């Protein structure tokens, strides 16, 4: 019996692996097609410079999108990510410049601030059963107001003290921030599949009532997921501040929609229960390759937005057709 079982399970495993690879293959293929098309259409596109620019411009969006993926899988939504990022960035700048805090201290406070905002989102929506859409919409306003309040509505120049984080490493062409964001993606994917938190996220997203009726508490998971999303916004805030050398209380407007777009392009369902962090990363890559490719082809900004919109709808359409088939 045991030999048979082993063979069975290993067969299952390999089939499971094939399925997993197939999932990523679709997204990777789309990305390759996109890069090929742009390389043919524009002579300047296929160059190290283009890819370096793309790689160094996406870490903040990537990190926010990872948090958003978890929130969407658990069946929620977080509209406040952009504002929370602005708030964390503002607090970071104030502490660093006006209060002369050390870099690490200001950094930790900024991440904590993001985590607390997320935690409040999670607690209020889980404990009082208020839709996350409403709670995070409120937090969107609160955090934005907070950002204006602490900076007096002024853009703060931070200076060169943290520029190293987004400056390309010599001989490697990519920045530490990009490497860190890739690490966050891999850790996120691992967490989703190999930790209890990840599995509970899927369980709640699939059927919250079954979780409740199985005698499992949902509040700790929900609180953790929203806190995680907020804290990732805090980290993204540091990266963005580093990249722009300034803390702008207006920054991050529309970031929530960009992050959600990346998730849904990557196949995450807005109804919860399914999604993949790596595919979200592909979603971020596809959007940024699209934007930079269109720019190099000389497309105007309005045109870029129209095409991006079409791609989002097209991606979800393909996804729904595929799931209907199976």
């Amino acid at each position, binding site marked *: 019996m045991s030999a048979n079982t082993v063979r069975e399970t290993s067969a299952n495993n390999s089939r499971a692996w094939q399925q997993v690879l197939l999932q990523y293959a679709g997204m990777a293929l789309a990305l390759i097609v996109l890069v090929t098309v742009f390389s043919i259409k524009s002579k300047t596109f296929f160059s190290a410079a283009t890819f370096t620019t793309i790689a160094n411009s996406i870490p903040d969006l990537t990190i926010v999108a990872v948090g958003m993926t978890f929130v969407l899988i658990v069946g929620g939504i977080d509209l406040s990510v952009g504002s929370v990022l602005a708030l964390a960035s503002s607090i970071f700048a104030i502490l660093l410049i006006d209060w002369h805090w050390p870099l690490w201290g200001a950094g930790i406070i900024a991440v904590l601030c993001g985590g607390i905002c997320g935690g409040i989102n999670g607690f209020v929506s889980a404990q009082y059963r208020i839709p996350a859409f409403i709670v995070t919409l409120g937090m969107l306003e609160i955090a934005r107001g907070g950002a204006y309040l602490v900076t007096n509505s002024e853009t703060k120049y931070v200076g060169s003290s943290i520029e190293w984080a987004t400056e390309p490493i010599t001989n490697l062409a990519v920045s530490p921030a990009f490497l860190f964001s890739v690490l966050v993606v891999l850790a996120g994917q691992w967490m989703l599949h190999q930790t209890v938190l990840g599995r509970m996220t899927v*369980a709640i997203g699939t059927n919250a009532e079954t979780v409740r*009726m199985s005698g499992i508490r949902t509040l700790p998971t929900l609180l953790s997921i929203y806190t995680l999303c907020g804290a990732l916004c805090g980290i993204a805030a540091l990266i963005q501040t580093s990249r722009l050398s300034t803390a702008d209380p207006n920054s991050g407007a529309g970031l929530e929609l960009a992050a959600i777009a990346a998730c849904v392009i990557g196949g995450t369902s807005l109804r919860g229960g399914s999604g993949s962090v790596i595919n979200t990363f592909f979603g971020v890559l596809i959007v940024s390759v699209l934007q930079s490719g269109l720019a190099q082809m000389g497309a105007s900004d309005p045109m870029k937005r129209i095409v991006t919109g079409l791609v989002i709808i097209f991606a979800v359409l393909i996804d729904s057709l595929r799931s209907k088939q199976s």
Partner: protein
Amino acid sequence: MLTTHELTKDYATRAVDSVSLEFQPGEIHALLGANGAGKSTLCKMIAGLVRPTSGSMTLAGRSYSPRGKEEAERSGVQIVQQELNLVPSLSVAENLFLSILPHRWGVLRTRRLLENARQLLRDFGLHSIDPCDHVSELGVGERQMVEIAANLSRECRILILDEPTAALSLSETELLMQHLYDAKRKGVSILYISHRLDEVEQIADRISILRDGKLVGTWPQNTLSQSEMVSFMTYGKDRPEGSSTGVPTPQQPTEVERRDSHSPKKDGPLLIVHRVSRRPRVQSVSFEVAAGEILGIAGLVGSGRTELLRLIFGADRADQGEMEIRSTEPSANSTPRHGLAPLPRTPAHAVERGIVMISEDRKSDGLWLPQSIASNIAWSKFRGSFVELLRPFWSRHANSTAETFRRSLAIRCDNTQHICQALSGGNQQKVVLAKWLNRDGKVFLFDEPTRGIDAAAREIVYQVMRDLCQRGKGLVVVSSDLEELLKISHRIGVISNGRWMKDFQGPDFCREEIVAEMFEGYQNQGKAIVRKNEVLQ
């Protein structure tokens, strides 16, 4: 009127296998079969909900291949499914005429709508339902009746009813039968699925029996006895030698066996429930369960049985009530405490205290349907605490646990990575059982543990119950199937209209008395117009 030619549908396995049938106008054609025989799939194909893999249909001489429910309805084929298709937030009237709402320039003509609805409900004999009520305020039986009324009111040549009486009270069933006769007289062809053989015997003109997706045969009603029906459903036409009567009696334990294996330990109660209320459905209910005892709870649908279990499990909040689980250790019993603990506030609290509940509706709150069997079983070990969330999830461990249960409960699947959605009702129920056996507890609450599952799975559920008993657990079983309760319970408590009426000590129960008690709570209120002897036959 409607003919099917070699209709076939393949899912993972062949669900319906070249079924050729014909339905005549003005006939009630009953479709029988054990679970998984393909009745529902066949109906769905006729109603346009599922497209056949091969085969064809003709309706009134013309070729008929509906691409959707709407197209089928335009051809006059209506289906009433087990799952209800009403919009809970709309009124009864709006639901009744949802596809043909009367309007002028898009503005709803409310008065006309209400008049039509009132007329329809009156014609249908549903005097107690106000067309202005929201559907969410109705009971399950009333909703079912509204849905059937809505379907019958439309232009309809073929009416498919998939277990319409499962949620109905006896008076509602009676009403339904009258309307089916009326429809039949008007020439409507009715396709009727039911597990209640006596009902089928009573109303059907012809009976077709399916087994494993194949048609066993079609018989005029009066040529088939109930025992023959059961035999055909179980064995097809090749009745095995030896079972001369052809009735595969579910292995009923003999009287001696039952007493041996079913003797509860009599050292005080394990679970004490004291004056639990959630008005108006549950009114001040108290009872006790001993370790190793199966307490059956009998009652009519809507009598508050499910609500009572949900209160004990903390799924709903009670108005009042107390509860205690006594330790089975004798030392703890030696110091009797005054006053009981409050009821659990959430299912998580209940499980922590050792109460688990196998709920009535496995699809909505028992399983994670799109997930694998292994995941479904593994998740039950979790409590969702912060500390736990940081731990790694061992999928290999989950798989081996699931494998153990797959064997011991005979869950039919290729492997434990199989998605629960695709399992049959019986196998899904086994997964739910495995989930709770994996979690373990002291008191097991079963709500309709065998609803919609086949005989083999049923036996396994009973076996699990007997095992739990022997391990000293306390079991509370709610079931609509009185035969089932009589067979498995040590003691039967009757709940009627939200009140605990009486306990009956087994093993020799008096059916008449139990049934009488089930109706007792409704006396003087005129709610149950049903005559008792109809239940008793």
